[in-house]
């Protein structure tokens, strides 16, 4: 009986019919890769304590930052070439500069920890295993732009991270890294931990503001942008967890030191979330510029159980599928863009030859139909219609005109949605249509 089996730590539920190893222990922190800058403290299968963080050099960057003029910090972050790690890849230094320029108070800094892209777990690992790094990055951001109030908007489902971050905030406050007169610098700043309530759309920055303000998470029109009119209509800097975790290194190493890893246009390291049919799925930190082949075959062990590669989903549900022809693409913003592939937040889900891609797109279409907030009709209706067509695909009952309808939905949603959800909801589906048209041919109603 399944529940007794789970209690004994042994469940025979391998999707391909083989027995599984005992899963009695939660598989924390499967972390690998090269140049472990951001994830240097991760992998202990528990949170890094404050004393451990300090021993590893933690909060040294904050001390250094508080002795620099804010404008110099922004100059360093701009020079580092750091771009957002949440998927939109906006230059962080420019974002900070925009908010620093505003005179209005109060200003806010927010850590976007509402990670909910299917296949992404990088932020969860950082939140659970090195929360102080996130806090340090957020304090430096606040100091740079002149904010005294910060939020960590944490995905509601991340209950373990909630425990760890709550503890880390309390420890940081007690040690004087948060609160009044931080490290005798005269700078006041504190952070509120705000739990999300289960809406993927709240990962969108303006929908996130709406949630904190006590409303339904409908995104706002942009412009105006958050740096001038953000939370409570005030100047706001909002950054992804991984982005903030890069800040201490940039301050300590300087922009030149930081740029020693990665490429000219994509400096630094990136966290990739490997899942699916690879031998060692998990979190991998690599410098920008390694190939997809290196990530999947050298680091993640290649295809498991003697399978052969069929497809790779890059960027999560909001990304796109690709096949073995792009294995030697360099993982940098510029090279992926040139190949027409998304980086997104760094999801790499690998599908072997036994997988039915129609099942994968059905799950993706269901996801977007459920998560569409409903504000923009093209997305609200488009995601529903897309789901219906994909349901017909999965049942082998496509009707004449379905492919044209799907393409039309793709263009409409991409052009007419005010937020990234609608703009990317059809991306993965269209990539399957493009690369495996035979799936659609075979699924016509007989």
């Amino acid at each position: 009986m399944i529940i007794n089996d789970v209690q004994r730590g042994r469940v025979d539920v391998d999707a391909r019919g083989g027995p599984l190893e005992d899963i009695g222990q939660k598989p924390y922190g499967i972390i690998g890769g090269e140049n472990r800058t951001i994830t240097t403290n991760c992998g202990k299968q528990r949170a890094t304590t404050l004393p451990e963080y300090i021993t590893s050099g933690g909060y040294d960057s904050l001390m250094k930052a508080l002795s620099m003029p804010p404008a110099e910090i922004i100059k360093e972050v701009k020079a580092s070439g750091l771009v957002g790690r949440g998927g939109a890849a906006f230059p962080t230094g420019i974002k900070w500069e925009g908010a620093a320029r505003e005179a209005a108070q109060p200003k806010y800094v927010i850590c976007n920890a509402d990670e909910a892209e299917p296949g992404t777990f990088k932020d969860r690992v950082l939140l659970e295993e090195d929360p102080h790094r996130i806090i340090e990055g957020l304090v430096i951001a606040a100091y740079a732009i002149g904010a005294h109030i910060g939020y960590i908007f944490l995905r509601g489902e991340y209950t373990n991270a909630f425990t760890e971050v709550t503890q880390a905030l309390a420890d940081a406050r007690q040690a004087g890294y948060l609160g009044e007169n931080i490290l005798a610098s005269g700078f006041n700043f504190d952070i509120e931990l705000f739990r999300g309530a289960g809406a993927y759309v709240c990962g969108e920055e303006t929908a996130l503001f709406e949630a904190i303000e006590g409303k339904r998470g409908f995104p706002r029109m942009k412009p105006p942008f958050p740096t001038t009119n953000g939370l409570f209509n005030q100047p706001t800097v909002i950054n992804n967890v991984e982005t903030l975790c890069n800040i201490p290194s940039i301050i300590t190493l300087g922009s030149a030191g930081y740029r020693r890893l990665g490429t000219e246009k994509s400096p630094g390291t990136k966290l990739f979330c490997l899942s699916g049919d690879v031998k060692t799925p998990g979190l991998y930190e690599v410098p920008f510029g390694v190939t997809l082949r290196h990530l999947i075959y050298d680091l993640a062990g290649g295809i498991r159980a003697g399978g052969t590669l069929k497809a790779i989903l890059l960027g999560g549900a909001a990304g796109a599928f690709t096949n073995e022809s792009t294995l030697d693409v360099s993982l940098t913003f510029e090279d992926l863009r040139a190949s027409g592939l998304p980086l997104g937040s760094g999801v790499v889900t690998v599908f072997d030859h036994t997988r039915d891609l129609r099942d994968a797109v059905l799950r993706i279409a269901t996801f977007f139909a459920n998560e569409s907030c409903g504000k923009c009709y093209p997305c609200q209706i488009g995601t529903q219609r897309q789901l219906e067509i994909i349901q017909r695909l999965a049942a082998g009952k496509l009707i004449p005109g379905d492919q044209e309808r799907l393409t039309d939905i793709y263009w409409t949603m991409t052009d007419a949605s005010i937020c990234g959800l609608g703009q990317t909801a059809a991306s993965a589906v269209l990539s399957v249509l493009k690369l495996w048209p035979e799936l659609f041919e075979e699924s016509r109603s007989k």
Partner: protein
Amino acid sequence: MTDLDLRPLQSVLSKNAHKGRPFLLPALMATQELYGYIPQNAAAEVSKVLRVPLADVFGVIDFYALFHSNPDHKTVLHICNDPACAMAGSDALLKSFQASETNRITLSKKRHASDFVNMPRP
């Protein structure tokens, strides 16, 4: 639900009443933690103390997937069935539970619920 003891909730609300509407999501989260769901009269209490129109409170409860306005069973299992988790066997897990424990457990087919089966197994 006229015998619902609102005092624990009222204690949370009175400490935070000055925050007004920005305390709405935390208030509903606290209500959910106290009662297992958000009963109508608890929602009305939140509406009154935070001075948010009741219709807006219901709108927020309805919008967010973690808020339930109906009483749940004691144990709620969230099983993710997005591609990465499905490929690691979450569908089989879901089907096993559905087949065996229909009365005792409420099954919620959650998207990307990381705490249960999302983390790729070693």
